[in-house]
């Protein structure tokens, strides 16, 4: 926070000196899906709309929650949380922000047809107390309500009604919504123009309620799908900031004058899930050897992650033994420790489990989803072969990979998990470790069920005491670690590149927040 204050002090100094008209030209691999802040759950689209629309509370550059449209909040009852809105906030078209806007926006987001409703679970109703106070009525106590709210953007009620857009957009039917290509928020930037897949232009909102850290007057966002072209546009000086910067071009970018790489290990943890069902999907033995914890441990020990980090990830990944990154609540060093690579021990464990000759199984990976996903899987397949196993590697585009994962048609599969937007271990427990049932366990490997983990997960969902909650998360994650349900690999590196004139913090969630960006002359 101190750094931010200093930066904003510097900003006002620069503004006072009369320097302005700073344009940032920004290129990404694809365009936003649309501008409706409740229209899609895509995190890139969401962070782009965050420049225009704002939530009640937001993440700062270090991913701490800070007040945004709400100045403070208090828990009145476990299921009633009161938010006090900031005074004098205006939408870009001049409307005043009031409690009705918050009520309509949040209910629009959790509407039955809204694709975003999963990002704000447990919200039953919003009650307007007075023009600047709202109560959020919840199903049950929600310890991470504010984490969810960082992604819940507020729109103007009158504007929505005027354009017949109070109901959310549903891509599966109906007509085009006004909000897909038009925007009216309270955020640091206003939409000037949008040409899908060609250019989105944002201009600074002079009437923003917050003191800007950024010194931009204009953002020109261009999607450039081809990696090579995106890098060329940066090198030729047509673009100031690219995200992502392909890892294979990192050396070239570092060598070039006037541009640099921004590379840090992010939040997204890459893991391999293991089928716990009664049979293998694609095996050559009876039953499922993977049900034996010794076999799962052998799979873990046989992977040399240091080699993968050094040879495939250019030394930029962070190896881990945990299902969550260090920035996520529930992390401990003990969980993070990785069992050392030991192929002989792996062989011994396989022999002990009754498979001295190894066995065959399906190994499914995406080839267009995570950083170097295909190369990592090929390397791991080779390492397992050294331990005497016979992985049958399939690498395919993400839609096909995840369809198989959904249908449990995989034995060992790759998944990356960033715990966004929660930034909380509960995300992993509820989606990847709890027994598959209802809203729980969407990605839990087939057949895995640990009653103690389930019990803890349900308790964590409603526990309001922070310390108790963290302790329960550590316990549950520890149990799952001993079960070898998932093989954690690493936190993958985030990779952006920028001209040397651009200064921007790279938050661990890999999201570009241009309201912290500064461009030097």
């Amino acid at each position, binding site marked *: 926070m101190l750094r931010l204050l200093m930066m904003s002090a510097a900003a006002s100094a620069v503004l006072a000196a009369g320097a302005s008209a700073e344009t940032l030209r920004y290129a990404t691999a694809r365009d936003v899906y649309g501008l409706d802040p409740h229209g899609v759950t895509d995190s890139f689209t969401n962070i782009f709309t965050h420049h225009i629309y704002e939530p009640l509370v937001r993440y700062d550059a270090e991913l701490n929650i800070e007040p945004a449209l709400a100045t403070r909040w208090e828990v009145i009852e476990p299921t009633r949380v009161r938010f006090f809105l900031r005074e004098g906030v205006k939408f870009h078209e001049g409307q005043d922000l009031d409690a009705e806007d918050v009520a309509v926006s949040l209910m629009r987001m959790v509407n039955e047809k809204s694709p975003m409703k999963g990002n704000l679970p447990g919200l039953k109703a919003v009650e307007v107390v007075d023009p600047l106070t709202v109560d959020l009525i919840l199903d049950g106590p929600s310890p991470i309500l504010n984490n969810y709210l960082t992604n819940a953007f507020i729109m103007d009620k009158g504007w929505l009604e005027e354009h017949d857009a109070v109901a959310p957009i549903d891509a599966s039917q109906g007509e085009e919504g006004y909000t897909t290509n038009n925007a009216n928020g309270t955020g640091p930037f206003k939409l000037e123009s949008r040409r899908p897949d060609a250019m989105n232009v944002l201009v600074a909102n002079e009437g923003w309620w917050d003191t800007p850290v950024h010194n931009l007057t204009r953002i020109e966002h*261009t999607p450039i799908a081809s990696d*090579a072209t995106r890098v060329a546009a940066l090198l030729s000086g047509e673009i100031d900031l690219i995200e992502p910067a392909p890892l294979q071009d990192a050396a070239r970018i570092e060598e070039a004058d006037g541009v640099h790489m921004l590379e840090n290990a992010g939040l997204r943890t890459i893991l391999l899930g293991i089928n716990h069902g009664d049979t293998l999907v694609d095996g050559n033995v009876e039953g499922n050897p993977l049900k034996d914890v010794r076999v799962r441990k052998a799979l873990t020990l046989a992977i040399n992650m240091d080699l993968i980090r050094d040879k495939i990830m250019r030394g930029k990944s962070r190896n881990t033994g945990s299902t969550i990154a260090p920035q996520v609540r529930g992390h401990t060093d003990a969980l993070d420790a990785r069992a050392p690579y030991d192929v002989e021990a792996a062989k011994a464990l396989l022999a002990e489990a009754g498979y001295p000759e190894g066995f065959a199984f399906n190994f499914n990976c995406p080839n267009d989803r995570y950083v170097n996903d295909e190369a990592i899987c090929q390397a791991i397949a080779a390492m397992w072969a050294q331990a005497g196993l016979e992985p049958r590697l399939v690498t395919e585009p993400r839609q096909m990979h995840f369809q198989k994962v959904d249908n449990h048609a995989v034995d060992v599969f790759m998944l990356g998990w960033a715990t966004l937007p929660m930034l909380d271990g509960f995300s992993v427990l509820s989606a990847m470790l709890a027994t598959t049932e209802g809203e729980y366990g969407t990605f839990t490997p087939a057949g895995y069920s640990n009653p103690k983990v389930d019990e803890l997960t349900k308790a964590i969902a409603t526990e309001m005491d922070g310390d108790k909650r963290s302790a329960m998360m550590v316990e549950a994650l520890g149990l799952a670690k001993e079960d070898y349900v998932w093989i954690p690999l690493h936190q993958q590196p985030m990779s952006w590149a920028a001209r040397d004139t651009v200064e921007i913090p790279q938050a661990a969630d890999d999201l570009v927040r241009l309201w912290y960006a500064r461009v030097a002359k």
Partner: protein
Amino acid sequence: MLGFLVRRVIQSVFVMLAVALIAFLMFRFMGDPVNSMVAENASTEERAAVRERLGLDQPLWLQYGRFVARAAQGDFGLSWRNARPVSTLLAERFPATAELVLVAAVLSLVLGIPLGILTALRPRSFPAQSLQLISLIGISLPTFVTGILLILVFSVWLGWLPSFGRGDVVDIGWWSTGFFTLAGLKALILPSIMLCLFQLTLIMRLVRAEMLEVLRTDYIKFARARGLSNRSIHFRHALKNTLIPVITIFGLQLGGLIAFAIVTETVFQWPGMGALFIQAVSFGDVPVMAAYLVLVSLIFVIINTTVDLLYAVLDPRLRVDGARGAH
């Protein structure tokens, strides 16, 4: 003539139905767009609900039937990725692709034919020999490699031309054009060179081969014997007869230009239909993919029909045959 056109229209309907059917058969192997449409932590039930709303749980023939029934009424549905009508998306992108293909086609003709003539008339000269060599490179180098090379040389090293996009465009009604601004014209140069290169070398080599063939024929020898000027022999007599196969190939290749525009548009981030299609493929956006494929098959049918009609204009023999056949 009328009968020919009516037959063609009926044929084209069947072609489009077949293309749509093949497309739907292929979409099954494309995987599932639902994962891109819901939150990462969405529950299994939510996923199933989205699948149901999109009709992905229904049998293939039903999905196909519904698409055809709605397409017949001009309704291609809403894009799953952009939540906008597919017809609007295609109409928005069409001008970009049309202008790029037009420029590339004109370039390939305007440069290809004279260069072909040059290499045919002076086959042993140094320019002709080097052009032959260069054309060999042009015809064998994959287009995306030439595209990247062009960007490297003219954008990164020399900094003369933009590496992506259409520059500034002007809207004339619903048509957005890059022809009337300097930035728009500059942006056209590299993509149209990349797109026309294969076509250009093909036409050049074809004109050369045809021309050499024609120059050996008796009527040319006779024309020489009559003491006609070289210019008259080459351009009035020889060139005319060279052009018939060139038009056939050009017509067929025009469809190829539209198809290859996918690669060019991806390399140069040209906001045309091809780029839209590639995005739809990577997302699994079935309505956009289906509509694009049907539209492209329609364009192919129209081009081929036009080429067939042009033959009759160029070649009097075909007109006579056609007239006889009609009796």
